[in-house]
């Protein structure tokens, strides 16, 4: 009897915990409405336009999925590092390095069939991003340098490196690298699914979903995942259990960097077919929001990635149809993150004063 009650209580606690992100989103939308009212805009109209813009028809929906693809990758990257107790702010830079190297390999490596060239381009982008992430990882593992500082600094270096590379590589007045060869392009989904033919969603999205499940498998079914999570939860207990902390920090950061790099690879091989200056600016930081909203769960990241992607992809339409500046989207995104991080506030507003320890 008692045991049954206990289980029920645990289940309820769990449910409440799962609801936090949903409530955070609703609260953020609610406050967004208030802001819209203050700005003398019709909030209902704005939100309808936002929804239409992101899910209104299949091609818009496809664009939403495309917009979600890179932030699913960066969300995974942030989450993987988080699981090892690391705060990888450097996903932005790792994404850019991945994009740069894949743009380079996609254009300069010639004469290969697609079956070789495409994987080579993807993998080289991933590896480059992984190496970029290995720098702060090694500094953290062997010298104790805090990863937040080093990854932020490496972001600036990556941004400058990118600007410099585009300037030297470009062969047209537009600030972008030369177009990649056909053998390195990721096919549009519209080629297989006719209803997506007007949208930019590409195989990269499928790759992102598969990667989510792969990351889930790595974290919860493998020895590597067991060790990474143990180090993240309790480094001292992990050490006592024969798990090398430094080794796992390095592995987790490299994998995180490779996931971020994939986000950049998708942008080059699937969307623009070249590295355009300013492409994917801020997507690394959106990844932090995606990971937080999903509570660092790789499967949840599919949902939170599409949610945040839809806000951005619908923003432009909202601007045109309801005359609401897109910046409101940024405000809503920031509010979502605020409420997820400060989830005590959400609990207080929704569940009342009663203090409960949710773990």
């Amino acid at each position: 009897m008692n045991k049954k009650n206990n289980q029920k209580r645990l289940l309820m606690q769990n449910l409440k915990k799962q609801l936090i992100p949903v409530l955070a989103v609703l609260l953020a939308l609610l406050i967004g409405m208030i802001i819209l009212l203050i700005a003398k805009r019709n909030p209902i109209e704005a939100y309808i336009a936002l929804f239409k813009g992101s899910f209104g028809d299949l091609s818009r929906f496809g664009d939403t999925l495309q917009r979600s693809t890179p932030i699913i990758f960066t969300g995974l990257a942030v989450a993987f590092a988080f699981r090892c107790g690391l705060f990888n702010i450097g996903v932005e830079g790792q994404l850019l390095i991945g994009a740069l190297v894949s743009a380079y390999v996609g254009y300069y490596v010639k004469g290969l069939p697609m079956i070789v060239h495409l994987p080579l381009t993807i993998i080289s982008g991933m590896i480059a991003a992984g190496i970029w992430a290995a720098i702060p990882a090694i500094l953290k593992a062997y010298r104790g340098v805090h990863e937040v500082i080093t990854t932020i600094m490496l972001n600036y270096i990556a941004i400058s490196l990118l600007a410099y590379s585009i300037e030297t590589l470009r062969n047209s007045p537009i600030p972008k690298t030369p177009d990649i060869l056909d053998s390195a392009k990721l096919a549009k989904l519209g080629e297989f699914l006719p209803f997506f033919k007007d949208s930019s969603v590409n195989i990269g999205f499928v790759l992102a979903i598969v990667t989510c499940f792969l990351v889930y498998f790595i974290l919860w079914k493998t020895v590597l995942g067991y060790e990474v999570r143990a180090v993240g939860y309790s480094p001292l207990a992990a050490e006592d259990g024969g798990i090398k902390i430094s080794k796992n920090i390095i592995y987790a950061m490299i994998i995180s960097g490779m996931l971020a790099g994939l986000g950049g690879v998708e942008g080059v091989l699937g969307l623009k077919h070249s590295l355009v200056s300013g492409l994917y600016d801020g997507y690394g930081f959106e990844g932090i929001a995606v990971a937080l909203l999903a509570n660092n769960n790789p499967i949840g990241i599919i949902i939170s990635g599409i949610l945040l992607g839809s806000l951005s992809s619908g923003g432009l339409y909202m601007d045109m149809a309801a005359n609401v500046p897109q910046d409101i989207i940024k405000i809503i995104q920031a509010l979502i993150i605020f409420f997820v991080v400060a989830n005590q506030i959400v609990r207080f507003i929704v569940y009342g004063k009663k203090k409960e320890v949710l773990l």
Partner: protein
Amino acid sequence: MTSETNEKELAKMMVGREVILYVEKQPPKLGKDVLLIKDLYCKSKTEHNILKLKKINLTVKKGEILGIAGVAGNGQNELLEVLTGLQKASSGNIFVNGKDITNISPKDIKFNKIAHIPEDRQKRGLVLNYSIAENLIMGYHFKKPFAKNGIIQEDIVNKHADDLIPKFDIRTPSKDTKARSLSGGNQQKIIIAREFFLDPELLIASQPTRGVDVGAIEFIHRRILELRDKGRGVLLISAELQEIMSLSDRIAVMYEGEIVAIVDVKDTTENQLGLMMAGIKNPKVKRGG
């Protein structure tokens, strides 16, 4: 009302049955040395000119419990960490069953038949956010049969938990419960189950019963004694003089990183031990005095 009761009766009322607070044990049947420490020195982790262990020489024989008594912070922790590979020795050697295991890695100690109950179960012993089943494989999680080709074998992990939970009397609603939500005694039993599973030749236990309930204390003491009676060696570090006195066969007293005395438990008293722990090497206190 307090005058009408005593420790033993209170314990009985709390647990619901008779509790053996003062362990009854057979005289030891000693075998060969299982642990031999020779001239062991260890420097402080932070200040390299400070010696935390000074010329430690100790032996633990098969079938014996050697207690280490001492005021906390006199080198017991460093001794434990050097023995379990968490700190490097500056010089000296450690042998287990004749094999030199000086500066072994924490990964390898279990596979040299050494079990280890850390002092701080919540920081060192368990990953509190891991389930009981996950905690029960920590340390051999990467070995067959628990993992194959880098993949954790969930069936075997679950079966392992189903076997050990009743065997070690871990009171929990389920094997998937997080270690965090169990009581101190049950948390400690997870560690004991995990460490005893590999049938250790040597047990290094630090404060094994600190902060656990009376029932669990009795259980843990009985397990440690069973191990000794099976002819295994036990090194017991405890701040509880009573625990040291009741479990150990011999007692080594540590003071400022040195072993100041090794005495037979039959030839000493708490008073005498207390004085030695304060650094007085040959206290002239008569038994019972």
